[in-house]
């Protein structure tokens, strides 16, 4: 859902001369682009149930930040299974057929040559290359597909400008709802976070 916008955002980071960022949806009092709203939580159970509440309120572009992996958080957040396996299968089939084609066309069609008395285009010697190439293509598809879907790597993230954000590597949990979300409404979100037990609810500004 957010894959394309992630890619666009990353492209705008790397090539600002080529890809222009979309205009801001919300502007803060100091005239800067609004990234979103964050709330802090002090316990795993609190942030877990808060995530369930944010999920049920229908928000799409938001994230939970935690110092350690919380089992079952993907269910609490309602994260859909990734599309990466489809990409991996496609790359595997592609690598397999590319290797088969490349070897067949060179050793059986374009330059047929007798090697060790084996028949032209025998499938046996093709197999290791077909295996290796499908593994290689799959590995590339997984790594770069994962980075593309995540929108990584990035030079900067607006949350880094928030002083208290650094505590999520120590003893705090945070939920951030982005201004890009179609349902973004600062007052409603503030009320939701307060109901869920969040503290230090802050609007995060983005450098423009």
């Amino acid at each position, binding site marked *: 859902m957010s894959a394309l916008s992630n890619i666009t955002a990353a492209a705008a980071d790397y090539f600002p001369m080529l890809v222009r960022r979309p205009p801001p949806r919300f502007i803060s009092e100091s005239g800067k682009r609004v990234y979103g709203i964050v709330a802090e939580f002090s316990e795993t159970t609190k942030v877990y149930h808060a995530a369930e509440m944010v999920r049920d309120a229908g928000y799409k572009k938001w994230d939970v930040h935690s110092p350690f992996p919380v089992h079952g958080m993907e269910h609490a957040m309602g994260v859909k299974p990734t599309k990466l396996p489809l990409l991996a299968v496609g790359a595997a089939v592609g690598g397999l057929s590319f290797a088969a084609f490349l070897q067949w066309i060179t050793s059986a069609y374009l330059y047929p040559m007798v090697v*060790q*008395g084996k028949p032209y285009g025998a499938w*046996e*010697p093709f*197999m*290791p290359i077909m295996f290796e190439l499908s593994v290689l293509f799959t590995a590339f598809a997984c790594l770069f597909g994962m980075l593309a879907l995540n929108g990584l790597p990035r030079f900067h993230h607006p949350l880094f400008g928030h002083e208290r954000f650094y505590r999520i590597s120590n003893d705090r949990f945070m939920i951030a709802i982005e201004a890009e979300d179609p349902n973004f409404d600062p007052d409603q979100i503030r009320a939701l976070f307060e109901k869920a037990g969040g503290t230090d609810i802050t609007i995060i500004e983005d450098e423009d």
Partner: protein
Amino acid sequence: MSQIAANHPAPVETALPDQVWERRLTKIAADPRMTEDNIHARGVLGKFGLPLLFVGIAGLLLTVIGGFSMNVRHALAAYEVGAFTALSMSLGCLFFLLVFHSLNAGWVITCRRVFEHGAALLPFCWLALVPIVVIEVVNGGVLLEWVGGHGDDYLLKKKAPYLNTGFFIVRFLIYGAVWSFLGWRFISLSRRMDETGDRTLGRKARYTAGWGILLFALTTAFAAFDFLMSLDFRFFSTMWGVYFFASSALSGVSVVVLTLAALRLRGKLTGLVTEEHFHDLGKLVFAFTVFWAYIAFSQYFLIWYSNIPEETAWFVYRKSHGWHWLFVTLCVAHFLIPFLIVGWRAVKRNPVLLGTMALFLIVMTVLDMVWVIRPMVYVQTQPVLEAGLQEPGLSGIWLDAAGALGVLGIWGWLMIRRVESGPLLPTKDPMLHESMAHKNYV
């Protein structure tokens, strides 16, 4: 030095304090899933047991009849297909037990009793090989041409220090001793733990697994050399032991999955062997499907490339004498179909689908044994030419089916009897709570 000794308790000591252990036992005893009805299967699988026994006895009788009416080579090969499939299933169960014990695996405890029952059938599997050895030795070599040492073949003379009847019998007795001991050891330790609650027995099992895994590897490989590779004494492949082991591990975990799926369908082990356990067992099924294909292809590939006559003869005979269909079948059905189906997460987590695939893979193991053993019956060697034997084709298939089903039927009947004989899981294992709460976080 003393510090090291203090940190590594001897096999009879325990790392678990008594109070913790008592608390765990109370908690497990109070668990609603541990009811008498849920963890015992008396008479539940009986519906399958007696038909299997009947199929087994009828198959063995038909095999004996076929041995007299057709020829003894064919009957013996058909019997060997069944006997080696049964042996590979039991050895596979033993292999996983050795690995689980040496790695102190916690997730598998609720499924482990079925592995133990499979491995406990090793004495039967060994006894099933005794008729083969007796027939070979008494007749001076039926399928194993080198038994009795006749002929003045140069290669046979070179290989005589290993391939001779006396040493063969000694090796066969060693296999029997090792397999029977290891198979009996794990089930008896586990059952004794059920009765006495002595948690130090787990350490004894781990201790046994340490040296047992070495003996397992050697006996499996050499049994495969002795019975299967030496069907053609000119042929040799250093991959052969691994090839048989790959079949063993695959069919071993498959038969366990099949048993557990049947038990789950009959309403047993609910909440104890969950989709999480099936998921992990399914990963093992998938892994060893790929492993088998990898080993089988590597063996074929190197022989194809190096083109040494003693080696290629094995494949040339099969691929050009009417067995090519089996080659293609194994490529597609032993690897490609399970690879594509079991790779699926939803299949691994579904007991019915995974059980079906396990049954399918056991059938494929039988076909793999057919591929190894059966073409050697009518290979045009001197004794076959002298006796004027001809490949009967489809008209002899009843004998192949009878031989394979004969041994497998009795193996299945014994397995069901064992499974029904006691608790379906180790009830007082120190890691049982870990397995009962097992979950895959992916």
